[in-house]
Structure formats: structure tokens, C-alpha cells
């Protein structure tokens, strides 16, 4: 099974880290993975996105033309990816920064007030992990545990103290996703 996701938001929202982590976890589980970043034209700031594919077999194109899953951290990203989504695909949205509803009715939508959830967890910067946790719980490209392990190899040195809150964010996201799926 090939599972691809597009993660998209402002530069600085941790889009790349989330994507890399997912790819790293996939690799750790012995799967085929690709991680393709793409930056907007602006030097700094601007919108950034990445395409991550985790698969049991070789991956041809690393580009996801029409996503089955998208993690959307800001409004421009929703505007961009909503029309491209495959039918029945899932969009996971950072509700705090996306002040509109999804117009399509043939896709699944999970809105998370991630900015506030993150504040509750004690670190504004873990929005990306909350959304990633939710995605992984729903689509199961990798195990949450593997993600957590992967975190350790990314957050080293002075950043090691952030491991714990990031782990909790992943779990929180997963929990929200379970609720969501239960509701559905």
C-alpha cells in the first residue's frame, strides 16, 4: 500500500520537520519512503509544503498530484489543495489559522483548533505534531511509536528537552483523531 500526504503551511510552522519525521519513521519500519520539499519563491517566509509517501513497494513519482491526504496549516494551503483532493480523501486542518469551512462534500475533514491545543500542551510550536499525530492515527502509514523514536534522532542536544512535549502532541493528535473516527 502506498500512502501519500501533502503537508502545507507557512515557513516556520514546522511543515518540513513533520514531513521528514514521517519519512524517517517509514524508513525505520523498513518501508519505501520519499520526502519532497518545495519552497515558495520568497527568500524567507511564504508558504512551504512537502510531499511524503510511505509505501510497501518502490515509489515511482515522489510528487503527489492529487492527494488522498493533506495536512493544512494555513488558509492559502487549503485554497490550494482543496480542489486537488481525491474523492474521499482526508484533509486535516489547523482550524485556528484557517477561518473557513471546506466547500467540497466528497472529502473527509478533520478540523483541529491546534494552536490552542498546543498552548494547552505548553508549547505553541507543536501544532505540526498534533496534526501529524492525527493523520498517522487515521491513515496509519507508520506506527505512532516509530514516530516517537524518530523524534529522538531529530531533537538532539539542546533540543532534546522538547522531545517530551512533541511526543505528547503526537499522542494528543492521535486521540483527537480517534474521537473523530468514533464520531464518524
Amino acid at each position: 500500500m502506498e500512502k501519500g500526504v501533502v503537508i502545507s503551511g507557512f515557513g516556520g510552522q514546522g511543515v518540513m520537520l513533520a514531513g521528514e519525521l514521517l519519512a524517517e519513521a517509514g524508513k525505520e519500519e523498513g518501508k519505501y519512503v520519499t520526502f519532497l520539499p518545495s519552497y515558495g519563491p520568497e527568500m524567507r517566509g511564504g508558504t512551504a509544503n512537502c510531499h511524503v509517501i510511505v509505501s510497501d513497494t518502490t515509489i515511482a513519482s515522489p510528487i503527489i498530484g492529487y492527494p488522498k491526504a493533506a495536512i493544512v496549516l494555513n488558509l492559502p494551503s487549503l485554497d490550494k489543495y482543496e480542489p486537488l483532493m481525491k474523492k474521499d480523501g482526508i484533509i486535516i486542518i489547523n482550524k485556528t489559522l484557517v477561518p473557513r469551512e471546506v466547500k467540497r462534500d466528497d472529502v473527509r475533514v478533520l478540523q483541529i483548533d491546534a494552536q490552542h491545543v498546543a498552548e494547552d500542551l505548553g508549547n505553541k510550536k507543536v501544532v505540526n505534531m498534533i496534526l501529524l499525530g492525527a493523520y498517522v492515527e487515521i491513515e496509519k502509514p507508520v506506527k505512532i511509536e516509530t514516530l516517537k523514536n524518530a523524534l529522538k534522532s531529530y531533537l538532539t542536544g539542546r533540543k532534546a528537552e522538547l522531545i517530551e512535549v512533541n511526543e505528547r502532541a503526537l499522542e494528543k493528535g492521535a486521540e483527537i483523531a480517534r474521537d473523530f473516527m468514533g464520531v464518524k
Partner: protein
Amino acid sequence: MGEKLLMKGSEAIAEAAIRAGAMAFFGYPITPQNETPEYFSRRMPELGRVFLQAESEVAAINMVYGAACTGTRAITTSSSPGISLMQEGFSYIANTNVPCVVVNAMRGGPGLGDIAPAQADYFQATKGGGHGDYHSIVIAPHTVQEEADLMFDAFELADKYRIMVVVLVDGLLGQMMEPVEFKDWVDVKKFKTPEWATVGQGDRAQRNILISFDILAEGLEKMNLVLQNKYAKIRENEVRFEEYKMDDADYAITAFGTVARIAKTTIELARNEGIKIGLIRPITLYPFPEKVIENRASNVKFFFDTEMNEGQMLEDVKLAVNGKKPVYFHGRLGGIVPTAEEILDEFKKHLGG
């Protein structure tokens, strides 16, 4: 081989080059491949090897030329505009018969263009953007793993034929991360200064002179024949390509690098619809795998070439097909990467015919 690492293509290239025995890097920064020199700048000093940021691409290639004349494994990496500045150097290196490796992470052109992935330097790389009748071996990987693997081959081929080897990639293959497993380190302690190298005569009976000229046309023609013989050998022995689902194919896509990879998805999509397409992917762009294309011309109904340019490899495909079957084309320009779906749509336009 060791553990799998998740790495950017542009860094995997540097790491693979280092493991393959690159003893010196000379280069000048340019997007989209700055990670490559930056990686070298960290690793080479650790290993007691040479990293030098040159004042320009013109200087960089001439530093490589100097190092190559000592028989040392040397490399430079750049992107399209920088590569254009190296053309005189390439031509000198070719006619001096010295080995080196050059990576071109192609970006959108012409001119300043943009920093998006492109394949519009195919002609420049394969037909010789510099002056005179010369060729380099040109290799086009399509995955990060292949980028890593082919760096080893690049240095081997360079030394074997005393020739420049160009590794032609693009920003997508450079920015993308994939798990990669590196081949074993080449034991650089075993490297010996070759007999022909210019490092000072030392104990040699003769002094060495490495030049790219002969004031007499008769002499220069002989030098050219040496080159042509070498190229003939290379065309004979070093052609590499991948055939993908060609066995039962009614149609052949031809594509290299990034686009070849996307085309594999196109082929999945098509086969889901019952259209049997295969892919012929040249891995060496020079020497070009003309035989396999020529042979397949009897099996397929037509060829469909697709590139991120206005149709460059297309000419080599046509030369190989030589009129036996139609050759169609789809290309995107200026750094636009086509999608698998788009390629399929374009392909289908020719099915009526």
C-alpha cells in the same frame, strides 16, 4: 553497504562522492545545489581532503582541471548558469584526457531563469556545449539511491577512460529525501599517482606534459582521433539504461531522470486502464542507448518522449528510431514538473492515430 539513511539527494551526492574517493572539491555556490558544496565543506576537512570555494565557476573548473592533471579524484558541482561558464574548461579537459566528475543540478533557463527543476541542459551536456568535437560521459540518475550509486561509477569511469563524467540531475532529485544505502568506502590509501600525472618529475625517466593543443593541424587531428577512438570504446561498452515493463508494451515512453520517475507512475495509471506502456530510461545519456530503442522500434506502435524541456533527448530518440515509428513528445518548460496524470493525458492524444 551499511545502514539506510534518510538523505537529501544533494547531500547523498556529496557523501557518495566522498566514499568513492573524491579527494578534492572545488566549486562556487549556486541554488539549487548549495547543500552539496556545504556538505563537502564540513566533511572534506575532517578527512584531511580538499574543499575550496573558488572565486567563480570559471576558476572552479580550472582548479578541477589542475587537480585532475595530477590524477587526483576531483569534483565540482553547480547548476545551469554556472555550468555554462565552465564550457571552455570542459573542452580543455576533454582534449587533455584527464579524469574528473561534474554534477549539474539543472534549473529553469535560459538566462537567470529560476531555481526550479529542469532538464534543458541535455544538449549542452551530451553534444558538447564547449568548442570542438568532444564528449563527456553523461549519467542521469532518477532516485536518491541511484544518485549515490552512480557517483561511484562516475569516478570509476572517469579514471578508466581519463574523461570527464557529468552527473545530470535537477533540483527535485537534489531536494528530495529518500532512504539511501551507500556502497563501501573506496580505500583511498590505495590510490597511486598515475604515471602520466604532472606532479614534478621525481624518479620518472621522462617528464610529463599535459596539454590540449598541437600547433600543427596534422597533430591535432591525431589527438582528435585518440578522442574518437575512446568515444567509440565508450559507446561500445558503457551504455546503460533501464527497461521498465517493456516486455509486453505496445508503446514506449522515453524519459530520463526526474521525468522518467514520474513516467513510471504514468505507466501504472495507464496499465490500470489497460493501456500497455513501457519505459525506456537512458541512464547514460552519452553514450546514448540507441540500440535498445532501435530494437524496440519493431515491437511498439509509437514512442512517446517526455522531458522537462522543449525536446532535446527527443532528437537522439528520433535518430535511433530513424523513421521506423512515430515519435511523439510532451515537454514542460522553465522549471515546471509535469504530473503523471498530465503525461498520460498527453500520451492519449496520440492513441487515435
